[in-house]
């Protein structure tokens, strides 16, 4: 958490500048990337994982998704989840991601986590993420049950 006054910048000059980002490089997975991926948990159903024939994948971050929130979440709480999911998507682990989406218990998770899951996987929801639409439906129902404005929170996802 950097020192701020609640926003990115007050300086008009500073607002015009941003760290340079590499533009639209393909998300190709190299052998070096594979060496960085470590199996650190188990998927939550009994399906035999394709990790038998492919490099294993770290899903330790998924525990955070299911932790009941005892306080308002901060970006730092969510970033590991987004990073973990993004790594899996970059490595084409769509089946595994789909199983994770299936195993989400919406009644336990913090709304920020649920939204992060949906938004991170949104660009590839038409890949074989068979459970994405159901998760969206379940999250909308759960937000409603918690008296939150699901239409606004989930804007752009439908």
């Amino acid at each position, binding site marked *: 958490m950097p020192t701020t006054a609640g926003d990115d910048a007050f300086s008009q000059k*500073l607002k015009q500048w941003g760290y340079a980002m590499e533009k639209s490089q393909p998300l190709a997975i190299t052998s070096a990337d594979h060496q960085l991926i470590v199996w650190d948990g188990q998927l939550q159903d009994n399906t035999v994982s394709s990790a038998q024939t492919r490099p294993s994948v770290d899903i330790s971050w998924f525990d955070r998704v299911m932790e009941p929130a005892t306080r308002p979440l901060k970006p730092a709480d969510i970033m590991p989840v987004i990073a973990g999911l993004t790594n899996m998507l970059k490595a084409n682990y769509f089946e595994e991601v789909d199983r994770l989406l299936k195993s989400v218990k919406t009644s336990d998770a913090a*709304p920020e986590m649920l939204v992060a899951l949906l938004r991170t996987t949104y660009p590839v929801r038409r890949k074989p993420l068979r459970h994405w639409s159901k998760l969206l439906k379940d999250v909308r129902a759960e937000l409603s049950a918690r008296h939150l404005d699901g239409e606004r*929170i989930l804007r752009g996802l439908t």
Partner: protein
Amino acid sequence: MRLKQWDHVQYVKNPLVEVVAQVRFPRVLEIDDQLPSDFQRVLREDYPLLETQEETLSVLIGQGQNKIMADDLPKRITVYHFIAPDRAWRISLSSEFVALTCTKYEKWEDFQPRMMTGLEAVAKLYSVTHWTRMGLRYRNLIIREDIGLKDVPWRELLAPFLLGVSIADSFTEGDYIPEIDVLAAQSYVSVLLENCVLGLRYGIVRKEQTGDQGYMIDADFYLDNQIARFDLDAIKQHLDRFHANAGAVFRGCIQQHLHNALGPQPISS
């Protein structure tokens, strides 16, 4: 670790675009429940303008052109920004922090009393008893065109450790890595100093509209994970110590060539 000391200077072509100090404290529900009109009354003479901001949980997904801002999440707390007429100074209050931001920083002797005014108001009006995090952040933006160094490469202006792999000339068949081939460079390092932590973020920045290139040196001095008494004298001493490190960090990040181009003027310490 103690930092190497340099002569205290003030730059004529000051690269500091923003300085912000913030003291965080356990949430004060009173500030959430009631408009901070008493706080405004104390500050109104110097900070008559008011802007409010809903502090939201914003998440950037992806990067580059594909990045998505997930910013339509549930609203959190309101931040009240009390702003000076010239918009160079701003005191911000929320239920979790008070902060001072300056966009035309000249000297600590101007900045510190303004921060103390905000802290005194919080202490008096809301009986804040403890603080949890304190930080003082200096954001330097170096634009070569603005200081007559348009054609001078970064490697002649910045300390080599900032440039890292982007000047790893042994990688290339040529004599050196062309600057134009460095697409992006950004790093963050946190270092434990004698009295605080330094979070140093630095790298190449670009102007969104034009793609012009600059270099950011963003030094954040802080103490966090604290439950310390909200003692104004002690807080002042902490901020003074943070400030004492700032010049040394910036000077250590640049080479003599850039130092000279910025127009250093000696100041008494």
